[in-house]
């Protein structure tokens, strides 16, 4: 028995660590010059549900000169055993030490995974600070949504990839190949010249005498601003039609078909809606072909139509009808992850679900029309009530409603509005004759976190005591039969807010938090707010100065040198309109609202021909 085999008998779900799943690719290590390990800073089940990983795995492994393997954050029991036996972090495919790879590529999906990034580096035996890594050590890179402000991680990351990775990864492979065996500095300089690549060490932040962030200065030879990468033609972009099929049940255990990228609704709190612009659809024929290949290559019984707002796909009705026609008897279920608040969406959900056994989820996000206008969530009370009526009439009995607490300008009246809406929905259910025993309206709230590159990037987060108070208030208002209230702990949102708009001075606090034992912060049972507070205190950081900071339009922002393609003027205009309670229309269907992205990146939105799929 090897050390690993011995350890595996002692941990929960050892299949998380060994690989060997269907469609895994194991290449001949000696014959492949560029070796990358994709590192997902959360556990296997979460990481394997992430579409981006499957895409990049496919992109890199389709090259002859490169290989990509996978590694995930070990769960607490595995970490304990690994440390005890002195076993370094290893990849799933070849069980090789992560530190043997040329590149360790992290994806940064949420701020609460930052501790896992550092912990994984540590477990791999890779020096945390880039400056301490010599040329024998892997290059540590990162991408994903949080790459749009990676400053708190800047000292630990050699390079950061902004925007979509399908094409940028090819550049990475080529540069690494060319500079293999050479000096670190030359390699990094070459990377810094690749479009969309940010090499933090070539950029120096400056702070004012008052401690405020002043600006970031690019060294000679690297671009002052790094502009995100974007795939022009999603229809022809590489797509993993032979994705790895985990043995373990992943969080999303199904085949995933990406229908389009980008979202045009312009919700002002939403970072994904900002950084994945413009909207780019695939053609229905492409999607049908891909669906066929995915199902036959995986054997999944569920096909999820994925995007930020799938109901908005221009041919959604035809696509769903065709899929149900082809696979309805297999039995294969088609699922729609996010439903728009309208009857059309419910009808669509009805057409894919023969038996209405599960619940439907809608996200009005705010409790009053006033506040929904502020955030540009264009859903009226009438829309919602009509929608739920359709849902109840169609036989659903369990509905879930998502809201955010602490949105800019929110008052108690808005919070009360959430309870009021929930009750109206419940009344509708009773009116529609949903049986008392089975009727359930669940309200879930999360706390608003201001995110970079959105119109709300200047806004402070609501103070923790206020969030707790509003949550308690809502809890009081949502007591009663058939009502369920669920919430996210505001403390985690607070830490998220600190890092979302953080700068490099947070790095020591992050490092200290990891030393104190913070990891897997996205898991309620692991999150230790007390340790976080201790880490901030010991490193002299006032976290509130980050989370509660209100920026002026002319203030420098720590992510100003990272360009999402959207004009700053558009964001300020949106912010001002938000405060005035004015909405901005959807930019789908040739109704450009002038965010500047398309001209800036010389790209055009692509909607698969006429037909909006929207109700008339």
């Amino acid at each position, binding site marked *: 028995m090897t050390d690993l085999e011995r350890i595996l008998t002692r941990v929960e779900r050892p299949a998380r660590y*060994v690989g*060997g799943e*269907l469609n895994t690719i194991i290449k001949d290590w000696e014959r492949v010059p560029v070796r990358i390990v994709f590192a997902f800073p959360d556990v296997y089940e979460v990481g394997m549900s992430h579409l981006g990983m499957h895409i990049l795995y496919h992109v890199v492994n389709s090259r002859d000169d490169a290989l990509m393997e996978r590694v995930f954050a070990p769960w607490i029991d595995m970490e304990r055993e690994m440390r005890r036996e002195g076993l370094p972090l290893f990849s799933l495919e070849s069980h090789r030490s992560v530190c043997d790879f040329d590149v360790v590529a992290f994806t940064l999906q949420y701020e609460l995974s930052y501790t896992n990034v550092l912990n994984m580096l540590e477990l791999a035996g890779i020096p945390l600070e880039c400056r301490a890594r010599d040329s024998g050590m892997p290059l540590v890179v990162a991408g994903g949504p949080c790459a749009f402000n990676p400053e708190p991680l800047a000292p630990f990351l050699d390079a950061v990839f902004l925007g979509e990775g399908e094409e940028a990864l090819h550049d990475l492979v080529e540069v690494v190949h060319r500079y293999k065996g050479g000096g670190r500095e030359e390699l990094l300089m070459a990377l810094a010249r690749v479009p969309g690549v940010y090499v933090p060490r070539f950029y120096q932040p400056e702070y004012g005498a008052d401690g405020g962030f002043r600006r970031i200065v690019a060294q000679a030879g690297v671009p002052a601003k790094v502009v995100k990468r974007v795939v022009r033609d999603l229809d022809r972009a590489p797509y993993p039609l032979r994705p790895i*099929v985990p043995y373990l049940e992943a969080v999303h255990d199904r085949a995933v078909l990406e229908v389009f990228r980008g979202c045009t609704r312009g919700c002002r709190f939403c970072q994904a809606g900002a950084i994945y612009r413009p909207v780019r659809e695939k053609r229905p024929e492409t999607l049908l072909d891909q669906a066929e290949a995915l199902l036959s290559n995986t*054997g999944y019984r569920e096909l999820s139509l994925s995007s930020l707002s799938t109901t908005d796909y221009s041919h959604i009705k035809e696509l769903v009808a065709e899929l149900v026609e082809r696979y309805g008897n297999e039995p294969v279920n088609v699922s729609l992850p996010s439903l728009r608040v309208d009857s059309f969406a419910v009808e669509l959900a009805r057409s894919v679900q023969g038996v209405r056994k599960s619940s439907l989820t809608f996200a009005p996000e705010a409790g009053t029309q006033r506040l929904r206008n502020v955030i540009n969530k264009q859903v009226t009370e009438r829309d919602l009530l009509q929608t739920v009526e359709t849902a109840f009439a169609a036989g659903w009995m369990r509905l879930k409603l998502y809201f955010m607490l602490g949105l800019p300008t929110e008052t108690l009246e808005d919070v009360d509005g959430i309870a009021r809406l929930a009750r109206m929905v419940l009344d509708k259910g009773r009116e529609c004759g949903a049986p008392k025993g089975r009727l359930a309206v669940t309200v879930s709230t999360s706390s608003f976190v201001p995110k970079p590159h959105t119109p709300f990037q200047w806004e402070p987060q609501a103070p923790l005591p206020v969030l707790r108070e509003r949550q308690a208030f809502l809890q009081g208002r949502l007591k009663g039969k058939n009502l369920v209230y669920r919430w996210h702990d505001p403390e985690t949102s607070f830490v998220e807010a600190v890092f979302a708009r953080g700068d490099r001075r947070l790095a020591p606090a992050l490092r200290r938090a990891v030393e104190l034992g913070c990891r897997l912060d996205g898991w309620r049972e692991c999150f230790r707010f007390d340790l976080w507070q201790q880490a901030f205190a010991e490193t002299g950081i006032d976290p509130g100065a980050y989370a509660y900071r209100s920026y002026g339009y002319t203030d420098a922002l720590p992510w100003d040198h990272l360009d999402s393609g959207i004009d700053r003027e558009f964001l300020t205009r949106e912010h001002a309109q938000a405060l005035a309670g004015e909405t901005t229309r959807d930019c789908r269907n040739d109704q450009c609202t002038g965010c500047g992205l398309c001209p800036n990146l010389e790209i055009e939105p692509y909607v698969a021909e006429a037909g909006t799929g929207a109700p008339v």
Partner: protein
Amino acid sequence: MPRFRLCYRQEGRARYVSHLDIVRAFERATRRAGLRLLYSQGFNPRPKLTFAAPLAVGVSGCREYLDLELEEEREPVEVLEALRSNLPDGLVPVAVRVVADGPALMSLVDRTRYLAVGPVPEGFDARALQAELAAFLSRGEIVVERRSAKGLKRKNIRPGIYSLRAGINGGKLCLSMELKAGAGNVRPDEVLKALGERLPLVPDDFAVLRTALMSRDNQLLWGGKGDGE
């Protein structure tokens, strides 16, 4: 509808997969292979796929069995080939045959054989080990603790140990055991643990392989005398 019995090996990385996940892996493989499994009727249709005996996580099996029911007639060799090219690496189909309707596969299994291979305890040779095992088995009671949904339970495993033999092969201790399956079953790790209390051996150091599943009358599930294998 035709019912097929598959004999397969579960080895390598697949030995770390739990039984529930193995069931799903086979279900998906049949779908990829274009074999139309029969599904139960109702709200949540379940595939007609039944296993002889779940394998514990970490243990390999070189003669595992499952029955699958298909919607249509197929040649056994076709089923075998279809599965061969559609299963992940550690699940290896060995043979397929048609079986008549009969009792559920699981109810046939009465005993299981295992081979556990690990380091030879310091200071023992084959003879000394045989003597230790004889003394071990001569006890009327061998009590182990088993974790269940209701907490720890004490359990006498002696009646479920039909045989236990030791040999030294290539510098390794090889323990072969024949244990009770089904109600009153004994697991190989329980035997190792109990042995570890009298011999200097660490159960985690042993690689465990299930070599056979047998029915009450000592027949292999495939047919043929259990001893003849």
